[in-house]
């Protein structure tokens, strides 16, 4: 059965956006910003690029809403996983050898 038809997206336009965002990503890691800002910018640009591929190259923009829900579930679960790991990570960082050595150093000074 022939597929449902929709207007053909501007594939080359999406390509140029992907290329520009990739160049910007490379530029950002050498920019004189604080690490946190660099990480936020990189994640923002990566998610934008991933969305462009999913929406236009995978035609998710033209699919039924439920297909979009199927596609978004892994992202939601991944974010949930990261939040579930966060309390445990804080404890590990708190007890890491580096932090404990620093704490012992501060204690010795007193």
């Amino acid at each position, binding site marked *: 059965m022939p*597929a449902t038809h929709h207007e053909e997206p501007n594939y080359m336009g999406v390509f140029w956006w992907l290329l520009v965002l990739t160049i910007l990503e490379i530029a950002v890691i050498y920019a004189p910003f604080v690490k946190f800002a660099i990480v936020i910018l990189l994640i923002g640009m990566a998610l934008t690029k991933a969305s462009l591929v999913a929406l236009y190259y995978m035609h998710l923009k033209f699919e039924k809403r439920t297909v979009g829900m199927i596609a978004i579930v892994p992202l939601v679960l991944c974010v949930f996983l990261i939040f579930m790991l966060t309390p445990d990570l804080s404890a590990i960082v708190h007890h890491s050898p580096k932090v404990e050595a620093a704490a012992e150093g501060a204690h010795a000074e007193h």
Partner: protein
Amino acid sequence: MTQAATVDHTLGVEPAESPLTPESWGKLGMWLFLAGDAMSFGGLLAAYGAIRYASGDWPQPSHVLGIQLTAFMTFLLICSSVTMVKGLAAIQHGDQAGLRRFLALTILGGIIFLSMQAYEWTHLIERGMRLSGNPFGASLFSTTFFCATGFHGCHVFGGVVYLTCVLVQAMRGRYSATNWNSVEIVALYWHFVDLVWILVFTFVYLV
């Protein structure tokens, strides 16, 4: 008895048309597979982030890994995504020669990507990177690097084999302006591989 058997048989038949993807059931199957596969990659990247966050001596990836080389690999994979959509658009307009040409270019992009990854791995192994440790800092730096990029590389290899099968069918003239669902399904897989590389490149190489 015969009537009951007939009723049971009728109930067991699936509807001819998928409610979510009227084009084909195969397309819905691929979307479900990709959602499951995305969870595998999501788990890997979340584990990478957790291990890195908890490590005190994680090396700065851009100081150890070749960013220029992998940036070019990213560019290559984006180009192969473009050739893939162009191939799909070609067969949607009935252009079989265009489909064959663009499929071949997509496969070539995948092969060059894999070759460059092999070169990168060889270079890093020569510098002392191993699955069990490395001279640059936390031992899990190289473990997570090889696992994440290796898992993605396996997907690229699988994609190249899959695309080659579709190309063989295209050369036999199987696809036309009214029969291109298989091309759309392989395209979904290949774009997913590209999408995942965008995330791997950012989290493993740049952040």
